[in-house]
């Protein structure tokens, strides 16, 4: 349980830090992701004897996977909280990932793109203007039917 919680937190931190380095520090997506993953990989390698094998094998992989989430352009996700949410979704997907895909190159990246696409529809759903517009259209549709029935009865 603690491992799962740690993976989710690490995913969020990785996504946000990669996004920050890529977009705000203008280092580019590839350098941000690779450099941070390299640093984390080296740290965990140096602390190999002091960390349990579960954490040693999972955390760096989750970190590099979530850094793919952070590689997103600011045209797709504008705010840090959305990137953090995408990292959270990635953590959930990673914890529950099927053993069928274990060892497949790019499986992490696929999970990252799924979590970003899921996050991209959050602003659309939460947009008050579109939600209100949708409610107005439904109301018009309902009352249009009622007006037709009244005219037929008359």
């Amino acid at each position, binding site marked *: 349980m603690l491992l799962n919680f740690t993976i989710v937190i690490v995913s969020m931190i990785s996504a946000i830090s990669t996004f920050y380095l890529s977009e705000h520090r203008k*280092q*580019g*997506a*590839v*350098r941000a*992701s*690779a*450099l941070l*993953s*390299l*640093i*984390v*990989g*080296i740290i*965990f*390698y140096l602390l190999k004897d002091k960390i349990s094998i579960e954490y040693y094998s999972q955390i*760096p*992989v989750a*970190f*590099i996977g979530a850094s*793919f*989430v*952070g*590689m*997103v*352009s*600011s*045209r*797709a996700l504008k705010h840090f909280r959305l990137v953090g949410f995408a990292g959270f979704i990635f953590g959930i997907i990673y914890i*529950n*990932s*099927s*053993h*069928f*895909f*274990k*060892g*497949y*190159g*790019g*499986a*992490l*990246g*696929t*999970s*990252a*793109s*799924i*979590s*970003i*696409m*899921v996050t*991209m*529809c959050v602003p*659309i*759903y939460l947009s008050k203007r579109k939600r209100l517009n949708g409610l107005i259209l439904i109301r018009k549709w309902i009352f249009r039917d009622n007006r037709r029935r009244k005219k037929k009865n008359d």
Partner: protein
Amino acid sequence: MIGLENYHNNKWQAIFFIVGISALLLIAYLKAPLHHHEHDVEDILVAIWVPIGAAVCYSLHIYLHLEIVIAAGITGTLASFLPNLNKKSDYLSKLPVAIYCGTFVGMSSINIAKNIGFIIAAGIFTGVLLLLSKNLFLGVGGKLGTLAFVGVTIASFLYYIFHI
């Protein structure tokens, strides 16, 4: 696959998971600004670097016995400094993306990728897909990983068919 694995234990959770994720993906595909018409990676000479990146990452992991994350980090970091060789070069600025895409291919474990030939084949398929997908998934992190995953899957399928 997650839904199928969990199906026998938690039927409604699996159905909810599959329907929920599929619906959100569909909404994002239809409504989100994913598509564009500028050409991003169209040169075959850029796509050639995908299998090269894959081979380098795989070699660092298997032959130098580095951890996979460190191997991918070294390959990606070195690739990201290539544009600094000539800052005016448009060609060099496209290389880090292709090489990092190859890195994801090279991250396949030895159970899936039994030799470097598999990795190079998967890298070639991924390079072709990178050329074809130039106007799709703009700005979506993980696009490179998705292409790598499809490339590795195609190579794995062909190896299975031809029993290599």
